[in-house]
């Protein structure tokens, strides 16, 4: 079954596509397992045409992530959606901010790392589909690295900036943002800030979704100083504070979610010589998160509780890029320490208050070494080979934490693990337009601290309390993929097929004799290693320039996952196609997007607690115009999402709370 599907996917992916070519536009395959999504270009654009385009600088990070091929978002509310890559999520992928390890503090996964950054802070988002040379930790499913925007030195304009105002009719959402850049000869500074808030939104058809409000601000400052030729010092600080955030899919909301993320880097950069780039960074971040049930109606709250959690991480990395003949070598060492604490205090009406540690002071230390080499073997062949090794040690750092787990686990709580990955990505250029590529990787991950030490963590997806398991084995994977890219001046076609064979797949298995902690829960599960699981799928995209002003693009993804017993894996999106038509004329732009997600019937409700999801289709439209006033510009973008006011929920939406209905969006951005 699996092999047959796999062969079919592979065959489709490497199907030669031939379009008669006249122009010479070479196929630029940099790293086939990586995509970089540029969010903000340099403050001073050279390309006049690009500048004139009314690019919308106010799109949310979640919307940007959700638009990436193979990326789907888990939704628990109208805020802090959690990204998945090819059906892999949480501990299976590795999320960093500019290489910095950072971990959410919430035991209910209300605060994925991506909720603490704003596009305003970012230069780009790097998506890794599996093991490659971009990782800061071993993982089986790749991950995201949010690259922070760096100040420019010596720009044509010393002062530049932008300010914007955005409004969404659905939920009366409002955002204001501003950014200011100073670019001196040796010193560059960027300061930016955003405030966003929304009331409850309405689902398609008009039903109000209670507890879907949010409020947050985010401020960031970065400075770059040129110490001497080729030597730079860089500082960065992001502070992100959310409050009064509703999670309609969960039993609790959030009183506050605060992150402080800081780093200092020393950079050597030289366009000549053997050592091209060397960056060393020290970082520290701290997340303070508190859940809240005081706004919920009494009937929904059998016992009022406080559930605060914190996550603190300190670490470093040092990364060097070398160029030697036909070798493009990257070396990296990095390390971090992460400490998690989460607790729960319950206040029953007629009894004493109850207190427990839900993440009983768990700590992880990681030290890793990464070496990769991209070799241009010939004009037609290049290959990226590399390896990463991590030493991971996990433990409980307080007596209270150890005591809490004394009633749960026999034997040692602390654990040291060795992780490695090796990978090879060969690329073969058939001709100037057409390339084939493949990837083979052996990779693994350690269980997360939640999976090891969690203490009755409630999972709303299947309604079970989860208990950690300190003796979990590493989850390992053989990742394989093949693909092809065809690019010509009017057309670009990318096909990619993949198959992951996962061993020791980590999933929760029911402990029938354990009584539930959460009132109304279905039972208690403990994380265990299942023998194996597999994921197969494909991504196909086409970009077509029909006229100089008219583009058409189509992105299609499909993933199929099952465990060794043929049970469907959870959180796997069904076939999805996103088709867009773009018309850009002078200072005007128009976009129509059609999204179709097929039904997902391949679910397992007994083990993974999932239910089937019906298909849905959506239409979004957008229009933009820019106005030039000397060297300043004003961009006005308007859009109408879910034009047909369709009531729908995606397969990854926890308990299928409907997504927003028709929503009029207006963004005005002034740049100078």
């Amino acid at each position, binding site marked *: 079954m699996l092999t047959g599907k796999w062969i079919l996917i592979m065959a489709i992916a490497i199907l030669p596509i031939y379009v008669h070519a006249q122009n010479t536009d070479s196929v630029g395959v940099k790293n086939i397992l990586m995509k970089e999504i540029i969010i903000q270009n340099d403050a001073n654009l050279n390309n006049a045409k690009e500048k004139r385009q009314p690019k919308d600088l106010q799109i949310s990070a979640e919307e940007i992530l959700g638009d990436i091929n193979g990326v789907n978002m888990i939704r628990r509310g109208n805020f802090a959606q959690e990204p998945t890559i090819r059906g892999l999520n949480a501990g299976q992928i590795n999320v960093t901010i500019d290489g910095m390890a950072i971990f959410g503090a919430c035991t209910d996964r209300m605060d994925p790392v991506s909720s603490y950054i704003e596009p305003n802070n970012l230069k780009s988002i790097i998506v890794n589909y599996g093991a490659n040379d971009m990782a800061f930790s071993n993982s089986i499913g790749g991950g995201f690295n949010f690259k922070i925007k760096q100040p420019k030195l010596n720009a044509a304009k010393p002062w530049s900036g932008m300010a914007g105002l955005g409004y969404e009719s659905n939920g009366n959402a409002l955002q204001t943002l501003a950014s200011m850049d100073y670019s001196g000869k040796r010193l560059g500074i960027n300061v930016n800030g955003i405030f966003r808030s929304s009331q409850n939104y309405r689902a398609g058809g008009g039903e109000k979704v209670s507890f879907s409000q949010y409020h947050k601000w985010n401020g960031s400052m970065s400075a770059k100083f040129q110490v001497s030729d080729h030597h730079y010092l860089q500082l960065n600080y992001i502070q992100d504070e959310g409050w009064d955030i509703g999670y309609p899919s969960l039993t609790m909301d959030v009183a506050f979610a605060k992150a402080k993320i800081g780093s200092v880097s020393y950079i050597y950069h030289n366009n000549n010589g053997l050592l091209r780039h060397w960056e060393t960074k020290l970082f520290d971040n701290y997340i303070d998160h508190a859940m809240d049930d005081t706004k919920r109606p009494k009937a929904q709250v059998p016992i009022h509780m406080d559930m605060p959690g914190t996550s603190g991480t300190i670490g470093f990395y040092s990364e060097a890029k070398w160029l030697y003949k036909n070798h493009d070598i990257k070396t990296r060492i990095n390390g971090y320490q992460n400490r998690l604490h989460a607790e729960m205090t319950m206040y029953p009406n007629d009894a004493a208050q109850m207190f427990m540690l839900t993440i009983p002071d768990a700590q992880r230390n990681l030290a890793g070494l990464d070496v990769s080499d991209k070799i241009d073997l010939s004009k037609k062949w290049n290959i990226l080979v590399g390896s990463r090794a991590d030493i991971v040690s996990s433990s409980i750092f307080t007596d*209270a934490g150890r*005591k*809490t787990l*004394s*009633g749960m686990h026999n034997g040692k709580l602390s654990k040291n693990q060795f992780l490695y990955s090796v990978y090879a990505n060969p690329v073969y250029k058939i001709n100037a337009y057409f390339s084939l590529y493949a990837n083979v990787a052996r990779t693994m991950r350690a269980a997360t601290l939640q999976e090891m030490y969690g203490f009755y963590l409630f999972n709303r997806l299947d309604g079970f309390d989860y208990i950690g398991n300190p003796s979990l084995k590493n989850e390992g994977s053989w990742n394989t993929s093949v693909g092809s890219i065809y690019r010509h001046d009017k057309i670009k076609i990318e096909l990619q097929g993949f198959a992951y064979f996962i061993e020791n797949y980590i999933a929760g298995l029911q402990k029938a004799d354990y009584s539930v*902690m959460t009132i109304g829960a279905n039972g208690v599960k403990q994380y265990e290693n299942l023998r194996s699981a597999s994921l197969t799928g494909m991504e196909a995209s086409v970009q077509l320039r029909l006229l100089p002003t008219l583009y058409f693009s189509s992105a299609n993804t499909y993933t199929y996952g099952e465990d060794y017993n043929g049970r469907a894996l959870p959180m796997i999106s069904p076939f999805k196609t996103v088709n867009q038509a773009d018309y850009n004329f002078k200072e005007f732009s128009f976009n129509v997007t059609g999204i179709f997600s097929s039904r997902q019937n391949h679910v397992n409700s007994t083990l993974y607690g999932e239910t089937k999801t019906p298909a849905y289709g959506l239409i979004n439209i957008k229009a933009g115009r820019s106005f030039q006033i000397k060297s300043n510009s004003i961009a006005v973008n308007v859009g109408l999402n879910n034009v047909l006011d369709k009531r729908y929920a995606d397969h990854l939406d926890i308990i299928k709370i409907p997504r927003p209905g028709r929503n009029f969006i207006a963004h005005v951005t002034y740049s100078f």
Partner: protein
Amino acid sequence: MKYLFIISTAFLFLLSSCKKENAQLEKPAITKIKIGEVVNSQNLKATMWSDDSIATGYHKLYLSVTDASGNDVNNATVNVLPLMKMSMMTHSSPFEKPVYNPASKLYEFAVVFTMPSGSDSWSVKATINGEDQTFNINVPAAKTKLVGSYVGTDGSKYVVSLVPLKKWEVGLNDIKILVNKMADMMTFPSMDGLNIQMTPEMPSMGHGSPNNVDPTSIDGGYYKGRINYTMTGDWRIHFKIRKGDVVIIDDASIDILF
């Protein structure tokens, strides 16, 4: 002047060394709560001590016996009997006989106060070298139910009490209970060899906890097991007690708050 200084310094030194000698003579203080003190006709002073304030439940108690010159007496014959004097009758309760502990120089024993004093009165009769002394003790109700009396399926009356060990903590704790049978109003023999099944519960939430170890008989009517508290708060511990396969007490319960 200089002379005066030396003399005064020497005097001060003398004074301080005197003090020291006096201090050495004093015996180490007992860091316990004093319940009562009596001097009998043999000029023996008996003092009763407790680790914490008395309330219903199992309490470890201590007697220090000193002679007229204040020396510890380690060879006295000491017996105790708890007594509950009610308007209509007097009854006793389970207790453990005194044993002299040379390390603490105290006669150590234990009493289960099965009910609060209320309008009646609790006392412990201490018999030292054949002479009875009465220590009256006020027993308020404990914050939670730490002892219970049950009529068994065999018709006998049983007393199940919690033996306090260390302070409770979240996680795995040792737990010790004492089971006595009421033979008559004055005799409560300890019961060994029963099968006890223990089930903790949080009444305010309706859940229990996993990985508890049922208490097993360790002689003297005591049973020792392990209890797993997953959180602080109110816990009710249910004991199902069997003699062989026959259930004699379906649900003896102890209430805990920490």
